[in-house]
């Protein structure tokens, strides 16, 4: 995929600008915005309106200049939708809307995985997480069916420290990505342990065939371990959730 020809051309006009500097500024603004949102200085509706306006403007810009190809547009749209769902999950106080934001983020993440030709994992993610999320919806409906939101939904534990920790963590990750980009390409030329054969490359739709073959030949022991883990989790969850029987003395 050819990424960011538009942004690249703009950068060429401006001069060489490190993209991680812009990423740090974005992280700082996001942290400040999140914290002020939690302190009640901002309303979440205004943030949503600003975000929608910005995203729509970016989309219009990309469509007018006509330099981005369709798959890049879809990829970026999925990324933006996932991050928007995540931000909604963080900022919304009602638990059921938070669960909706979580579902949006996870399903958009599955779309991103689908574009990376990991079709089986995308489908499995949708099945597992969608099933889990639907059950979560049932739980939320069952446990928190009140008119007013509870205090533990309204009052968070130390949002200031959490914001600082999150911003620092993301900053360190972005910085390490930048240093990895700056490293010489020879250091990143990792020789794959078993390169793919010609008939099953990752980019073909039949990559699921290769994945299955790899799973059940090279990683068969891992599959067995995973099956054992699932069995143990099933037994454990039944044992934990069992209603204790009152024994009369």
């Amino acid at each position, binding site marked *: *995929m050819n*990424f960011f020809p538009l942004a690249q051309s703009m950068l060429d006009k401006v001069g060489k600008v490190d993209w991680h500097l812009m*990423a740090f500024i974005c992280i700082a603004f996001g942290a400040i915005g999140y914290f002020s949102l*939690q302190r009640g200085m901002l309303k979440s509706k205004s943030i949503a309106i600003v975000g929608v306006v910005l995203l729509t403007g970016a989309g219009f810009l990309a469509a007018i200049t006509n330099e981005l190809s369709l798959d890049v547009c879809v*990829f970026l749209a999925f*990324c933006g939708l*996932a991050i928007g769902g*995540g931000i909604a*999950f*963080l900022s919304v106080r009602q*638990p059921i809307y938070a669960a909706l934001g*979580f579902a949006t*983020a996870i399903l958009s993440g599955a779309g*991103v995985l689908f574009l*990376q030709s*990991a079709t089986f*994992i995308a489908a*499995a*993610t949708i099945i597992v*997480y969608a099933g*889990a999320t639907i*059950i*979560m919806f049932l*739980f939320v409906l069952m*446990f*928190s069916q009140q008119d007013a939101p*509870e205090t*533990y*939904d309204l*009052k*968070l*534990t*130390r*949002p200031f*420290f959490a*914001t600082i*920790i*999150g911003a620092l*963590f*993301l900053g360190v*990750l*972005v910085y390490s*990505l930048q240093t*990895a*980009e700056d490293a010489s390409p020879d250091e*990143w030329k*990792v020789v*794959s342990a078993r*390169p793919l054969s010609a008939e099953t490359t*990752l980019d073909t739709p039949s990559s699921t065939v290769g*994945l299955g073959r*790899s*799973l059940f030949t090279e*990683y068969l022991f*891992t599959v067995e371990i*995973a099956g054992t883990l*699932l069995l143990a*989790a099933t037994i454990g*969850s039944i044992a934990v*959730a069992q209603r204790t029987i009152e024994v009369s003395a």
Partner: protein
Amino acid sequence: MTESTQLLLLFGAVMFTIGMVGFLTRRSIILMFLSLEMMLAGVSINLIAFSKQHHNYQGQVLAIMVLTVAACEAAIALAMVVSLYRRKATLDINVWSDVNETPSPPVSEPRIVIVEETIEYPTLTPAGLDPSVSPIPSNLKPSDWTKADDQRLHDAEVSQHA
């Protein structure tokens, strides 16, 4: 790294950070669990990105393992939520803060604590003279003992037991 890989890694990092901040701030058990799932989703996106980068299936196999562990974790977490809600009818995590470990005493401190308590012994009929009411001064030397002292002692004993 290609730009596609870099963008995917950035996306995974953002998802992981969102999950981490949510886990640190949220107080509802269910929403904390959802934040954990979002962190796992970010890690899985990273694995897929590296699978694409290196053109083999190792990352995808690892992502399937992450998915399996996430499913197991979901099952056990839901069972725990049910059983915790049955104990105390709330989803607040702070209610369960007394489950944490109590601070252990420092090692230098002796483990055996001596308890001072007053013990009531059986008493007999007092014999002899109470030293506090004795007419003889306590610093009297035995060489200075006279017959008069004997007599005074005898009188005091008699007057005490009378």
